[in-house]
């Protein structure tokens, strides 16, 4: 990634273009008879991605099937939070998807750090907490109350103590 834009077939005729400036319909530079949609790149300043494990250099194992690697490759800085810091992470690790330290700016040891989401093989998503978050998101007042309860002025340890720990997935990881 890091490319300035990407072409995509689709979306023509929809109201998307009237409401967004990051997508437009242009001529294919290689075939003037063809027009396609192009979408502007999203290049975050910082990506924060939670890993199953990482080493001190920043090599890490991400869950499979997610978009964390793609996001990291498009971002200026990448912070990896990891369940576990190990001596060395290698490309052939069977537990997930490898991301090279070349992409990574910093590593943070953050056990249970995916909460309220889950980590495959380690712990499940905390559905009750996500419901609470969604309910709180309905207005600025209720969302601010949520932040007061869980985030503002709280340390990571205080946050973890406040949330109910969901059941550990049986068999592995724990």
């Amino acid at each position, binding site marked *: 990634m890091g490319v300035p834009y990407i072409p995509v077939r*689709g979306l023509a*005729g*929809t109201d998307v273009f009237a409401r967004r400036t990051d997508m437009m319909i242009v001529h294919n530079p290689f075939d003037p008879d063809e*027009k396609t949609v192009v979408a502007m790149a999203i290049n975050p300043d910082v990506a924060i991605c939670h890993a199953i494990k990482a080493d001190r250099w920043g090599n890490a194992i991400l869950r499979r099937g997610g978009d964390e690697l793609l996001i990291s490759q498009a971002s200026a800085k990448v912070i990896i939070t990891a369940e576990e810091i190990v001596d060395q992470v290698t490309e052939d690790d069977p537990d997930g998807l490898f991301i090279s330290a070349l992409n990574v700016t910093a590593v943070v040891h953050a056990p249970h750090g995916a909460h309220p989401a889950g980590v495959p093989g380690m712990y499940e998503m905390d559905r009750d907490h996500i419901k609470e978050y969604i309910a709180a998101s309905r207005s600025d007042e209720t969302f601010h109350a949520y932040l007061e309860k869980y985030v503002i002025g709280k340390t990571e340890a205080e946050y973890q103590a406040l949330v109910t720990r969901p059941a550990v997935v049986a068999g592995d990881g724990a």
Partner: protein
Amino acid sequence: MTGRYNADELLAVLMSRHIDDFETVACGAISMLPASAILLAEATHAPNIDAIIRGSEVYGAGVGRDMHFIAQRGKLDMFFLSGVQFDGEGNLNLHVIGDPDAPDRRFPGGYGSGLLAYTAKKLMLFRTEHSTRVFVPEVDFVSAALKTDPTITRMKQQVWLFTPKAILRWDDGLQRYALLSYHRGTTPAEVQAATGFQLLIPPDVTETPEPTDEELQTLRTTVKERLIETGTYARWAETAFMPA
């Protein structure tokens, strides 16, 4: 409706008949009826299809990117899509009801719809309600469009729209929906009255062939079991179908 089948079973059976063997067929993440249609086709006349069912533990695992690029290169034979509103210009809305800047209701959105409605060779639109609040003169937001500026590359497509009352067909030449068939218990006039835009109604339009006993039995046994054992809307499948 005759009491032999419920509305969900009717739509699943009717959609399954349009799936041909060896096709690559796909549906999205909250797609119980398409999933049932796909598995019914696989269990009957189309055993060699490639099925992608997002949200299924077996049919949806690790194929999200594949689905995107298969569609982008024009190799996705069929995609299923629903919407909150459809209009007679071939637009569907899966974004908002009301003013997009201050919506009355929000829906999951439609980037997938806008991409896949454009690229699938056979587009299976469906809606579980056939009324004038669904089939409107003009949608509040165009999430996916059947009409495209002719200078923009788009493949030829076949498009159907399945409802509890009828099967509509998008007439590519006339750029309008035509009534392909109406279901047992309704009439072309009743279908038109429940539709907020003008349909083309051929004088020789016929009744939709009802689900056969064999189709219903397969749906209620093989397909139900398969949905449950593959983690494909298993909880829904427990109660969706009438007793075998």
